[in-house]
Protein backbone atom coordinates (compact mmCIF):
# COMPACT_ATOMS: atom_id res chain seq x y z
CA UNK A 1 0.00 0.00 0.00
CA UNK A 2 1.47 3.30 -0.95
CA UNK A 3 1.75 6.25 1.36
CA UNK A 4 0.91 9.90 0.75
CA UNK A 5 4.49 11.06 0.34
CA UNK A 6 5.39 13.67 -2.21
CA UNK A 7 8.81 13.50 -3.80
CA UNK A 8 10.65 16.28 -5.53
CA UNK A 9 13.48 15.31 -7.86
CA UNK A 10 16.44 17.65 -7.37
CA UNK A 11 18.39 18.44 -10.49
CA UNK A 12 21.71 20.06 -9.68
CA UNK A 13 23.96 22.45 -11.52
CA UNK A 14 27.50 22.52 -10.05
CA UNK A 15 26.24 21.00 -6.82
CA UNK A 16 23.49 23.59 -6.43
CA UNK A 17 19.82 22.71 -6.93
CA UNK A 18 18.12 24.37 -9.86
CA UNK A 19 15.66 27.02 -8.76
CA UNK A 20 12.66 25.08 -10.07
CA UNK A 21 13.44 22.28 -7.57
CA UNK A 22 13.26 24.69 -4.64
CA UNK A 23 9.97 26.08 -5.96
CA UNK A 24 8.53 22.56 -6.21
CA UNK A 25 9.94 21.62 -2.81
CA UNK A 26 8.05 24.45 -1.13
CA UNK A 27 4.89 23.45 -3.00
CA UNK A 28 5.35 19.81 -1.99
CA UNK A 29 5.64 20.85 1.65
CA UNK A 30 2.43 22.86 1.37
CA UNK A 31 0.66 19.91 -0.24
CA UNK A 32 1.95 17.43 2.33
CA UNK A 33 0.80 19.69 5.16
CA UNK A 34 -2.82 18.94 4.41
CA UNK A 35 -2.30 15.17 4.50
CA UNK A 36 -0.52 12.43 6.36
CA UNK A 37 2.26 12.46 3.82
CA UNK A 38 5.77 13.80 4.01
CA UNK A 39 7.61 15.95 1.51
CA UNK A 40 10.89 14.44 0.37
CA UNK A 41 13.70 15.37 -1.98
CA UNK A 42 15.50 12.83 -4.16
CA UNK A 43 19.05 13.80 -5.02
CA UNK A 44 21.30 11.90 -7.43
CA UNK A 45 24.76 13.44 -7.30
CA UNK A 46 28.26 12.49 -6.13
CA UNK A 47 28.26 15.50 -3.77
CA UNK A 48 24.72 16.04 -2.50
CA UNK A 49 25.52 17.90 0.74
CA UNK A 50 24.70 21.45 -0.37
CA UNK A 51 21.55 20.30 -2.13
CA UNK A 52 20.40 18.28 0.89
CA UNK A 53 20.72 21.35 3.08
CA UNK A 54 18.73 23.40 0.56
CA UNK A 55 16.09 20.66 0.37
CA UNK A 56 15.51 20.65 4.14
CA UNK A 57 15.48 24.44 4.29
CA UNK A 58 12.88 24.60 1.53
CA UNK A 59 10.53 22.15 3.17
CA UNK A 60 11.75 18.58 2.81
CA UNK A 61 11.02 16.34 5.80
CA UNK A 62 13.18 13.64 4.24
CA UNK A 63 16.00 13.57 1.74
CA UNK A 64 16.97 10.47 -0.26
CA UNK A 65 20.47 10.59 -1.61
CA UNK A 66 22.15 8.40 -4.24
CA UNK A 67 25.82 9.24 -4.74
CA UNK A 68 26.10 8.88 -8.49
CA UNK A 69 26.52 11.09 -11.51
CA UNK A 70 23.17 12.27 -12.87
CA UNK A 71 22.01 11.40 -16.35
CA UNK A 72 18.37 11.01 -17.30
CA UNK A 73 18.59 7.34 -18.31
CA UNK A 74 20.25 6.08 -15.14
CA UNK A 75 18.20 8.48 -13.01
CA UNK A 76 14.98 7.02 -14.43
CA UNK A 77 16.24 3.54 -13.53
CA UNK A 78 17.18 4.70 -10.02
CA UNK A 79 13.80 6.38 -9.54
CA UNK A 80 12.12 3.13 -10.56
CA UNK A 81 14.03 1.19 -7.90
CA UNK A 82 13.53 3.83 -5.21
CA UNK A 83 9.83 4.09 -5.97
CA UNK A 84 9.45 0.33 -5.71
CA UNK A 85 11.04 0.45 -2.25
CA UNK A 86 9.49 3.62 -0.81
CA UNK A 87 6.20 3.80 -2.76
CA UNK A 88 5.70 7.57 -3.01
CA UNK A 89 2.34 8.92 -4.13
CA UNK A 90 3.63 11.78 -6.26
CA UNK A 91 6.95 12.58 -7.91
CA UNK A 92 7.49 16.17 -9.02
CA UNK A 93 10.16 16.79 -11.65
CA UNK A 94 11.32 20.11 -13.07
CA UNK A 95 10.56 20.50 -16.78
CA UNK A 96 14.13 21.33 -17.66
CA UNK A 97 15.94 19.96 -20.71
CA UNK A 98 17.03 16.81 -18.87
CA UNK A 99 14.04 16.82 -16.55
CA UNK A 100 11.62 16.31 -19.43
CA UNK A 101 13.49 13.25 -20.65
CA UNK A 102 13.85 11.94 -17.09
CA UNK A 103 10.12 12.32 -16.46
CA UNK A 104 9.12 10.61 -19.72
CA UNK A 105 11.60 7.77 -19.23
CA UNK A 106 10.60 7.31 -15.58
CA UNK A 107 6.90 7.22 -16.50
CA UNK A 108 7.64 4.41 -18.96
CA UNK A 109 9.60 2.46 -16.32
CA UNK A 110 6.92 3.02 -13.68
CA UNK A 111 4.02 2.47 -16.13
CA UNK A 112 2.46 5.48 -14.47
CA UNK A 113 0.42 8.53 -15.28
CA UNK A 114 2.16 11.79 -15.96
CA UNK A 115 0.96 15.37 -16.28
CA UNK A 116 3.52 17.55 -18.00
CA UNK A 117 4.27 21.23 -17.67
CA UNK A 118 1.45 21.93 -15.28
CA UNK A 119 0.51 25.24 -13.78
CA UNK A 120 -0.88 23.78 -10.57
CA UNK A 121 -1.65 20.60 -8.66
CA UNK A 122 -4.52 19.98 -6.24
CA UNK A 123 -4.97 17.00 -3.95
CA UNK A 124 -8.51 16.17 -2.89
CA UNK A 125 -10.23 13.19 -1.34
CA UNK A 126 -11.10 11.84 -4.76
CA UNK A 127 -7.68 12.05 -6.35
CA UNK A 128 -4.91 14.30 -7.59
CA UNK A 129 -5.73 16.91 -10.19
CA UNK A 130 -3.15 18.51 -12.39
CA UNK A 131 -3.88 21.73 -14.19
CA UNK A 132 -2.13 22.43 -17.44
CA UNK A 133 -2.75 24.99 -20.16
CA UNK A 134 -4.17 23.90 -23.47
CA UNK A 135 -5.42 25.51 -26.68
CA UNK A 136 -2.76 28.20 -26.51
CA UNK A 137 -3.55 28.94 -22.87
CA UNK A 138 -7.14 29.88 -23.61
CA UNK A 139 -8.47 26.99 -21.60
CA UNK A 140 -6.93 24.95 -18.81
CA UNK A 141 -7.14 21.18 -18.83
CA UNK A 142 -7.76 19.38 -15.58
CA UNK A 143 -6.06 15.99 -15.61
CA UNK A 144 -6.94 13.45 -12.99
CA UNK A 145 -4.63 10.64 -11.93
CA UNK A 146 -5.65 8.20 -9.22
CA UNK A 147 -3.00 5.51 -9.11
CA UNK A 148 0.28 5.95 -7.34
CA UNK A 149 2.95 6.64 -8.20
CA UNK A 150 2.29 9.54 -10.55
CA UNK A 151 4.56 12.15 -12.06
CA UNK A 152 3.98 15.84 -12.54
CA UNK A 153 6.42 18.19 -14.21
CA UNK A 154 6.67 21.94 -13.76
CA UNK A 155 8.52 24.68 -15.59
CA UNK A 156 10.55 27.18 -13.55
CA UNK A 157 8.53 30.14 -12.27
CA UNK A 158 5.21 28.33 -11.88
CA UNK A 159 5.41 28.36 -8.08
CA UNK A 160 6.62 31.46 -6.30
CA UNK A 161 9.78 31.01 -4.27
CA UNK A 162 9.45 32.25 -0.68
CA UNK A 163 12.22 32.66 1.90
CA UNK A 164 13.64 29.28 2.99
CA UNK A 165 13.71 28.28 6.66
CA UNK A 166 17.42 28.59 7.40
CA UNK A 167 18.83 25.85 9.57
CA UNK A 168 15.84 23.54 9.17
CA UNK A 169 16.75 19.87 9.03
CA UNK A 170 15.17 16.42 8.63
CA UNK A 171 15.80 12.74 7.96
CA UNK A 172 18.54 11.79 5.51
CA UNK A 173 18.53 8.41 3.77
CA UNK A 174 21.47 7.20 1.68
CA UNK A 175 20.68 4.61 -0.94
CA UNK A 176 22.91 2.64 -3.28
CA UNK A 177 21.50 1.59 -6.61
CA UNK A 178 23.62 -0.31 -9.09
CA UNK A 179 22.66 0.70 -12.61
CA UNK A 180 23.22 -2.11 -15.16
CA UNK A 181 25.42 -1.27 -18.16
CA UNK A 182 22.60 -1.68 -20.68
CA UNK A 183 20.65 1.25 -19.23
CA UNK A 184 22.97 3.96 -20.49
CA UNK A 185 22.45 4.03 -24.26
CA UNK A 186 22.80 7.77 -24.74
CA UNK A 187 25.82 9.91 -23.93
CA UNK A 188 26.18 13.59 -23.14
CA UNK A 189 29.32 14.74 -24.93
CA UNK A 190 29.45 18.29 -23.66
CA UNK A 191 27.93 21.71 -23.23
CA UNK A 192 28.87 24.84 -25.13
CA UNK A 193 27.68 28.16 -23.71
CA UNK A 194 26.28 30.61 -26.22
CA UNK A 195 26.09 34.34 -25.56
CA UNK A 196 22.94 34.79 -27.58
CA UNK A 197 21.21 32.09 -25.59
CA UNK A 198 22.60 33.51 -22.31
CA UNK A 199 20.86 36.78 -22.96
CA UNK A 200 17.70 34.83 -23.56
CA UNK A 201 17.94 32.84 -20.31
CA UNK A 202 15.12 34.86 -18.85
CA UNK A 203 13.49 32.25 -16.64
CA UNK A 204 15.78 33.17 -13.76
CA UNK A 205 15.66 36.94 -14.34
CA UNK A 206 14.48 39.11 -11.46
CA UNK A 207 13.58 42.00 -13.75
CA UNK A 208 12.16 41.67 -17.25
CA UNK A 209 11.46 44.38 -19.78
CA UNK A 210 9.21 42.92 -22.45
CA UNK A 211 8.06 44.22 -25.80
CA UNK A 212 5.11 43.34 -27.98
CA UNK A 213 3.53 44.39 -31.26
CA UNK A 214 3.49 48.01 -30.09
CA UNK A 215 7.28 48.17 -30.27
CA UNK A 216 6.90 48.25 -34.02
CA UNK A 217 10.30 47.09 -35.24
CA UNK A 218 13.57 45.34 -34.45
CA UNK A 219 15.17 48.76 -33.92
CA UNK A 220 12.34 49.65 -31.54
CA UNK A 221 13.64 47.01 -29.15
CA UNK A 222 16.84 49.00 -28.71
CA UNK A 223 15.25 51.24 -26.07
CA UNK A 224 14.04 48.17 -24.19
CA UNK A 225 17.56 46.68 -24.12
CA UNK A 226 18.76 50.04 -22.73
CA UNK A 227 16.16 50.12 -19.97
CA UNK A 228 16.85 46.47 -19.10
CA UNK A 229 20.58 47.18 -18.86
CA UNK A 230 20.05 50.15 -16.54
CA UNK A 231 17.68 48.13 -14.34
CA UNK A 232 20.00 45.11 -14.36
CA UNK A 233 17.34 42.95 -15.98
CA UNK A 234 16.63 40.95 -19.13
CA UNK A 235 14.59 41.58 -22.25
CA UNK A 236 11.61 39.44 -23.21
CA UNK A 237 8.93 39.53 -25.86
CA UNK A 238 5.43 38.51 -26.70
CA UNK A 239 4.71 36.03 -29.49
CA UNK A 240 3.62 38.86 -31.78
CA UNK A 241 7.04 40.50 -31.67
CA UNK A 242 8.78 37.17 -32.23
CA UNK A 243 6.53 36.26 -35.15
CA UNK A 244 7.32 39.66 -36.73
CA UNK A 245 11.00 38.73 -36.59
CA UNK A 246 11.96 41.66 -34.32
CA UNK A 247 13.53 39.38 -31.72
CA UNK A 248 14.48 35.71 -31.41
CA UNK A 249 12.16 32.93 -30.26
CA UNK A 250 14.28 32.34 -27.17
CA UNK A 251 12.97 35.64 -25.81
CA UNK A 252 9.35 34.66 -26.17
CA UNK A 253 7.30 34.70 -22.99
CA UNK A 254 4.04 32.84 -22.86
CA UNK A 255 2.42 29.45 -23.04
CA UNK A 256 4.42 28.33 -26.07
CA UNK A 257 7.51 30.18 -24.88
CA UNK A 258 8.92 30.68 -21.42
CA UNK A 259 7.18 31.15 -18.12
CA UNK A 260 8.75 33.85 -15.98
CA UNK A 261 8.23 34.95 -12.38
CA UNK A 262 10.41 38.01 -11.93
CA UNK A 263 10.22 40.52 -9.15
CA UNK A 264 9.36 43.16 -11.77
CA UNK A 265 7.90 42.77 -15.24
CA UNK A 266 7.37 45.78 -17.47
CA UNK A 267 5.44 45.17 -20.70
CA UNK A 268 5.71 47.74 -23.47
CA UNK A 269 3.24 47.62 -26.34
CA UNK A 270 1.93 44.24 -25.20
CA UNK A 271 -1.81 43.76 -25.46
CA UNK A 272 -1.93 41.03 -22.84
CA UNK A 273 -3.41 38.10 -24.72
CA UNK A 274 -3.98 35.09 -22.46
CA UNK A 275 -1.09 32.98 -23.77
CA UNK A 276 1.34 35.74 -22.81
CA UNK A 277 -0.34 36.60 -19.51
CA UNK A 278 -0.18 32.97 -18.48
CA UNK A 279 3.57 33.22 -18.81
CA UNK A 280 3.93 36.23 -16.52
CA UNK A 281 1.22 35.96 -13.90
CA UNK A 282 3.51 34.81 -11.10
CA UNK A 283 5.51 38.03 -11.42
CA UNK A 284 5.57 40.04 -8.19
CA UNK A 285 4.87 43.34 -9.90
CA UNK A 286 3.47 43.83 -13.40
CA UNK A 287 3.69 47.20 -15.11
CA UNK A 288 2.06 47.79 -18.48
CA UNK A 289 2.49 50.60 -20.98
CA UNK A 290 0.17 50.64 -23.97
CA UNK A 291 -1.61 53.27 -26.05
CA UNK A 292 -4.82 51.22 -26.02
CA UNK A 293 -6.77 51.84 -22.80
CA UNK A 294 -8.77 48.66 -23.48
CA UNK A 295 -5.75 46.40 -23.76
CA UNK A 296 -6.39 43.28 -21.65
CA UNK A 297 -2.96 43.66 -20.05
CA UNK A 298 -4.35 46.50 -17.91
CA UNK A 299 -6.63 43.98 -16.27
CA UNK A 300 -3.58 42.04 -15.17
CA UNK A 301 -1.08 44.78 -14.39
CA UNK A 302 -0.50 46.19 -10.95
CA UNK A 303 0.41 49.53 -12.50
CA UNK A 304 -0.70 50.70 -15.94
CA UNK A 305 0.06 53.72 -18.05
CA UNK A 306 -1.89 54.55 -21.19
CA UNK A 307 0.84 56.27 -23.18
CA UNK A 308 3.30 55.88 -26.02
CA UNK A 309 6.08 53.46 -25.09
CA UNK A 310 8.51 55.40 -27.27
CA UNK A 311 8.09 58.31 -24.84
CA UNK A 312 7.75 56.40 -21.57
CA UNK A 313 10.57 53.89 -22.08
CA UNK A 314 13.38 56.43 -22.62
CA UNK A 315 11.94 58.68 -19.88
CA UNK A 316 11.97 55.76 -17.47
CA UNK A 317 15.52 54.82 -18.46
CA UNK A 318 16.64 58.43 -17.84
CA UNK A 319 14.91 58.55 -14.44
CA UNK A 320 16.35 55.24 -13.26
CA UNK A 321 19.82 56.25 -14.45
CA UNK A 322 19.51 59.49 -12.44
CA UNK A 323 18.41 57.62 -9.33
CA UNK A 324 21.15 55.06 -9.52
CA UNK A 325 23.66 57.88 -9.84
Amino acid sequence: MSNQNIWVFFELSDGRPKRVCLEMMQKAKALAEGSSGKAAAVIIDPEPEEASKAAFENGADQVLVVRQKFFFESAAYILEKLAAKYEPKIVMIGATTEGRDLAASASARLHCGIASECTDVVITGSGVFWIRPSYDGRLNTNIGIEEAPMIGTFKPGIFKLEEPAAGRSGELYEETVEVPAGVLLTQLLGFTPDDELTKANIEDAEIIVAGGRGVGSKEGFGQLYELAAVLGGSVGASRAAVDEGWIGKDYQIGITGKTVAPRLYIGFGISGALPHVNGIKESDIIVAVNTDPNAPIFGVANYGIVADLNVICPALTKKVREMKG
Partner: protein
Amino acid sequence: MKEGAMKILVLLKEVPVVSEIRINRQYFTIDRSGVGKMMNPADRHAIEAALVLANARGGEVTAMTMGPESSESILREAVSLGVKAAYRLTDKVFAGADTLATAAVLKAAIDATGPYDAVFCGASSIDGVTGQIPAKLGTMLGYGILTNACKIEITEAGLTIDRKAGTGYEKLTASFPLVCSVTEDANTPRKPSIKGRTMSKRLVVEVLDNEKLQIPAESLKSPSKVIGLFPPPALEKGQMIPGEDPEAAVAELVELLQGQAAF
Protein backbone atom coordinates in the same frame (compact mmCIF):
# COMPACT_ATOMS: atom_id res chain seq x y z
CA MET B 1 16.21 -2.97 -50.62
CA LYS B 2 19.96 -3.51 -50.37
CA GLU B 3 21.42 -5.87 -47.80
CA GLY B 4 22.52 -3.85 -44.78
CA ALA B 5 20.41 -0.85 -45.75
CA MET B 6 18.77 1.03 -42.91
CA LYS B 7 15.15 0.77 -41.93
CA ILE B 8 13.98 4.15 -40.73
CA LEU B 9 10.64 5.07 -39.20
CA VAL B 10 9.07 8.48 -38.84
CA LEU B 11 6.13 8.97 -36.47
CA LEU B 12 3.54 11.53 -37.52
CA LYS B 13 0.59 13.17 -35.83
CA GLU B 14 -2.46 14.86 -37.30
CA VAL B 15 -3.32 17.93 -35.24
CA PRO B 16 -6.10 20.51 -35.35
CA VAL B 17 -5.25 24.00 -36.52
CA VAL B 18 -5.27 25.26 -32.92
CA SER B 19 -5.85 28.90 -33.76
CA GLU B 20 -9.10 28.04 -35.54
CA ILE B 21 -10.67 26.40 -32.49
CA ARG B 22 -13.41 28.51 -30.94
CA ILE B 23 -13.69 28.51 -27.19
CA ASN B 24 -16.85 29.50 -25.34
CA ARG B 25 -15.70 30.99 -22.04
CA GLN B 26 -19.15 30.90 -20.54
CA TYR B 27 -19.93 27.26 -21.13
CA PHE B 28 -16.32 25.96 -21.20
CA THR B 29 -17.00 24.31 -24.53
CA ILE B 30 -14.70 23.88 -27.45
CA ASP B 31 -16.05 24.11 -30.95
CA ARG B 32 -13.90 22.00 -33.21
CA SER B 33 -16.42 21.88 -36.05
CA GLY B 34 -14.94 23.00 -39.30
CA VAL B 35 -11.49 23.34 -37.79
CA GLY B 36 -8.80 22.35 -40.24
CA LYS B 37 -6.43 19.47 -39.69
CA MET B 38 -2.77 19.40 -40.54
CA MET B 39 0.48 17.54 -40.00
CA ASN B 40 2.11 18.61 -36.75
CA PRO B 41 4.66 21.24 -37.92
CA ALA B 42 7.71 19.66 -36.24
CA ASP B 43 6.92 16.31 -37.92
CA ARG B 44 7.80 17.73 -41.34
CA HIS B 45 11.31 18.31 -40.00
CA ALA B 46 11.40 14.76 -38.63
CA ILE B 47 10.54 13.47 -42.12
CA GLU B 48 13.37 15.56 -43.57
CA ALA B 49 15.87 14.21 -41.02
CA ALA B 50 14.75 10.64 -41.79
CA LEU B 51 15.11 11.14 -45.55
CA VAL B 52 18.58 12.68 -45.11
CA LEU B 53 19.70 9.63 -43.14
CA ALA B 54 18.18 7.22 -45.67
CA ASN B 55 19.96 9.05 -48.46
CA ALA B 56 23.32 9.11 -46.66
CA ARG B 57 23.30 5.50 -45.53
CA GLY B 58 21.10 3.80 -48.04
CA GLY B 59 17.74 2.75 -46.77
CA GLU B 60 14.04 3.43 -46.74
CA VAL B 61 11.77 5.55 -44.64
CA THR B 62 8.38 4.34 -43.43
CA ALA B 63 5.80 6.64 -41.88
CA MET B 64 3.38 5.73 -39.12
CA THR B 65 0.53 7.52 -37.43
CA MET B 66 -2.06 6.65 -34.81
CA GLY B 67 -5.27 8.30 -35.91
CA PRO B 68 -8.63 8.30 -37.68
CA GLU B 69 -9.13 7.93 -41.42
CA SER B 70 -8.52 11.66 -42.00
CA SER B 71 -4.95 11.22 -40.80
CA GLU B 72 -4.14 9.23 -43.95
CA SER B 73 -3.65 12.58 -45.68
CA ILE B 74 -0.52 13.28 -43.63
CA LEU B 75 0.81 9.84 -44.56
CA ARG B 76 0.26 10.70 -48.22
CA GLU B 77 2.02 14.00 -47.68
CA ALA B 78 4.99 12.10 -46.24
CA VAL B 79 5.08 9.80 -49.27
CA SER B 80 5.04 12.79 -51.62
CA LEU B 81 8.27 13.87 -49.91
CA GLY B 82 10.00 10.54 -50.43
CA VAL B 83 8.75 8.21 -47.69
CA LYS B 84 8.21 4.73 -49.13
CA ALA B 85 5.47 3.10 -47.05
CA ALA B 86 2.92 4.03 -44.42
CA TYR B 87 0.98 2.51 -41.56
CA ARG B 88 -2.06 3.83 -39.75
CA LEU B 89 -2.82 2.50 -36.28
CA THR B 90 -6.43 2.56 -35.24
CA ASP B 91 -8.83 0.71 -32.99
CA LYS B 92 -11.76 1.52 -30.69
CA VAL B 93 -9.66 0.39 -27.75
CA PHE B 94 -6.99 3.01 -28.53
CA ALA B 95 -9.49 5.83 -27.94
CA GLY B 96 -8.71 8.19 -25.07
CA ALA B 97 -5.15 6.95 -24.87
CA ASP B 98 -2.86 9.09 -22.76
CA THR B 99 0.87 9.27 -23.54
CA LEU B 100 1.59 5.97 -21.79
CA ALA B 101 -1.04 4.02 -23.72
CA THR B 102 -0.06 5.79 -26.95
CA ALA B 103 3.58 4.81 -26.47
CA ALA B 104 2.48 1.22 -25.81
CA VAL B 105 0.56 1.16 -29.11
CA LEU B 106 3.49 2.65 -31.02
CA LYS B 107 5.86 0.13 -29.46
CA ALA B 108 3.63 -2.77 -30.48
CA ALA B 109 3.44 -1.46 -34.03
CA ILE B 110 7.21 -0.97 -34.14
CA ASP B 111 7.76 -4.51 -32.86
CA ALA B 112 5.33 -5.83 -35.48
CA THR B 113 6.72 -3.92 -38.47
CA GLY B 114 10.35 -3.39 -37.51
CA PRO B 115 13.05 -3.68 -36.40
CA TYR B 116 14.08 -0.11 -37.19
CA ASP B 117 17.52 1.41 -36.89
CA ALA B 118 16.15 4.87 -36.23
CA VAL B 119 12.78 6.29 -35.22
CA PHE B 120 12.29 10.00 -35.90
CA CYS B 121 9.49 12.20 -34.62
CA GLY B 122 8.69 15.84 -33.97
CA ALA B 123 9.95 17.18 -30.61
CA SER B 124 6.41 17.99 -29.51
CA SER B 125 2.95 18.45 -30.98
CA ILE B 126 1.11 21.76 -31.03
CA ASP B 127 -2.06 20.40 -29.45
CA GLY B 128 -0.89 18.33 -26.49
CA VAL B 129 2.56 19.92 -26.25
CA THR B 130 3.76 17.31 -23.79
CA GLY B 131 6.85 16.16 -25.72
CA GLN B 132 6.49 12.85 -23.86
CA ILE B 133 6.57 10.28 -26.64
CA PRO B 134 10.25 10.23 -27.72
CA ALA B 135 11.86 9.41 -24.35
CA LYS B 136 8.94 7.24 -23.25
CA LEU B 137 9.01 5.17 -26.44
CA GLY B 138 12.79 4.99 -26.43
CA THR B 139 12.77 3.62 -22.88
CA MET B 140 10.10 1.03 -23.74
CA LEU B 141 12.05 -0.06 -26.82
CA GLY B 142 15.46 -0.03 -25.14
CA TYR B 143 16.73 2.41 -27.78
CA GLY B 144 19.09 5.37 -27.40
CA ILE B 145 17.19 8.63 -26.88
CA LEU B 146 18.14 11.92 -28.55
CA THR B 147 15.52 14.63 -27.99
CA ASN B 148 14.97 18.16 -29.26
CA ALA B 149 17.65 17.98 -31.93
CA CYS B 150 18.29 21.34 -33.64
CA LYS B 151 21.31 19.92 -35.47
CA ILE B 152 21.91 16.31 -36.54
CA GLU B 153 25.21 14.75 -37.53
CA ILE B 154 25.42 11.21 -38.89
CA THR B 155 28.28 9.27 -37.29
CA GLU B 156 29.87 5.87 -37.84
CA ALA B 157 27.48 4.00 -35.57
CA GLY B 158 24.63 6.39 -34.94
CA LEU B 159 23.75 10.06 -34.59
CA THR B 160 25.18 13.03 -32.71
CA ILE B 161 22.81 15.92 -32.05
CA ASP B 162 22.96 19.46 -30.73
CA ARG B 163 20.08 20.81 -28.72
CA LYS B 164 19.35 24.09 -26.95
CA ALA B 165 19.73 23.87 -23.19
CA GLY B 166 19.32 27.04 -21.16
CA THR B 167 22.40 29.19 -21.70
CA GLY B 168 23.97 27.10 -24.43
CA TYR B 169 23.93 23.92 -26.48
CA GLU B 170 24.29 20.30 -25.37
CA LYS B 171 25.85 17.69 -27.62
CA LEU B 172 24.54 14.14 -27.25
CA THR B 173 25.24 10.93 -29.08
CA ALA B 174 23.77 7.46 -29.34
CA SER B 175 24.27 4.39 -31.51
CA PHE B 176 21.56 2.80 -33.61
CA PRO B 177 18.93 1.74 -32.81
CA LEU B 178 17.70 5.06 -31.46
CA VAL B 179 14.79 7.48 -31.20
CA CYS B 180 15.49 11.02 -32.33
CA SER B 181 13.06 13.92 -31.88
CA VAL B 182 13.52 16.95 -34.08
CA THR B 183 12.74 20.64 -33.58
CA GLU B 184 11.61 23.06 -36.25
CA ASP B 185 15.01 24.76 -36.49
CA ALA B 186 16.83 21.52 -37.32
CA ASN B 187 16.48 21.65 -41.07
CA THR B 188 14.51 22.97 -44.03
CA PRO B 189 11.96 20.41 -45.21
CA ARG B 190 12.09 19.59 -48.92
CA LYS B 191 9.16 20.14 -51.23
CA PRO B 192 7.24 17.22 -52.73
CA SER B 193 8.64 15.88 -55.99
CA ILE B 194 6.57 14.99 -59.05
CA LYS B 195 7.46 11.33 -58.56
CA GLY B 196 6.56 11.69 -54.89
CA ARG B 197 3.15 13.09 -55.70
CA THR B 198 2.47 10.17 -58.02
CA MET B 199 3.55 7.65 -55.37
CA SER B 200 1.40 9.46 -52.83
CA LYS B 201 -1.69 9.00 -54.98
CA ARG B 202 -0.91 5.31 -55.43
CA LEU B 203 -0.18 4.73 -51.76
CA VAL B 204 -2.10 1.98 -50.03
CA VAL B 205 -1.96 2.71 -46.33
CA GLU B 206 -1.66 -0.44 -44.28
CA VAL B 207 -4.07 -0.24 -41.36
CA LEU B 208 -3.11 -1.99 -38.15
CA ASP B 209 -5.80 -2.54 -35.55
CA ASN B 210 -5.58 -4.36 -32.24
CA GLU B 211 -6.60 -7.62 -33.85
CA LYS B 212 -3.30 -7.41 -35.73
CA LEU B 213 -1.25 -5.82 -32.91
CA GLN B 214 -2.65 -7.98 -30.09
CA ILE B 215 -1.91 -5.46 -27.34
CA PRO B 216 -3.23 -6.72 -23.99
CA ALA B 217 -5.90 -4.58 -22.30
CA GLU B 218 -3.59 -3.97 -19.34
CA SER B 219 -1.11 -2.12 -21.56
CA LEU B 220 -3.85 0.04 -23.05
CA LYS B 221 -5.01 1.50 -19.74
CA SER B 222 -4.52 5.26 -19.44
CA PRO B 223 -3.58 6.19 -15.87
CA SER B 224 -4.23 9.87 -16.59
CA LYS B 225 -7.62 11.17 -17.69
CA VAL B 226 -8.83 14.54 -18.86
CA ILE B 227 -11.45 15.46 -16.29
CA GLY B 228 -12.48 18.73 -17.83
CA LEU B 229 -11.60 22.07 -19.30
CA PHE B 230 -12.07 25.45 -17.72
CA PRO B 231 -11.01 29.03 -18.35
CA PRO B 232 -8.18 30.46 -16.29
CA PRO B 233 -9.20 32.71 -13.36
CA ALA B 234 -9.55 36.41 -14.04
CA LEU B 235 -6.88 38.60 -12.42
CA GLU B 236 -7.44 41.77 -10.37
CA LYS B 237 -7.37 45.16 -11.99
CA GLY B 238 -4.54 47.39 -10.92
CA GLN B 239 -3.70 50.98 -10.51
CA MET B 240 -3.67 53.29 -13.52
CA ILE B 241 -1.14 56.11 -13.67
CA PRO B 242 -2.23 59.08 -15.83
CA GLY B 243 -0.19 59.07 -19.02
CA GLU B 244 -0.69 62.62 -20.34
CA ASP B 245 2.47 63.99 -18.73
CA PRO B 246 5.22 61.43 -19.35
CA GLU B 247 7.69 62.96 -16.88
CA ALA B 248 5.10 62.93 -14.11
CA ALA B 249 3.98 59.41 -15.03
CA VAL B 250 7.52 58.10 -14.90
CA ALA B 251 8.22 59.86 -11.60
CA GLU B 252 5.09 58.38 -10.02
CA LEU B 253 5.86 54.90 -11.37
CA VAL B 254 9.42 54.96 -10.08
CA GLU B 255 8.22 56.09 -6.63
CA LEU B 256 5.66 53.29 -6.51
CA LEU B 257 8.22 50.72 -7.62
CA GLN B 258 10.80 51.93 -5.13
CA GLY B 259 8.21 51.63 -2.41
CA GLN B 260 7.92 47.99 -3.39
CA ALA B 261 11.70 47.52 -3.56
CA ALA B 262 11.19 46.45 -7.14
CA PHE B 263 14.70 47.31 -8.28
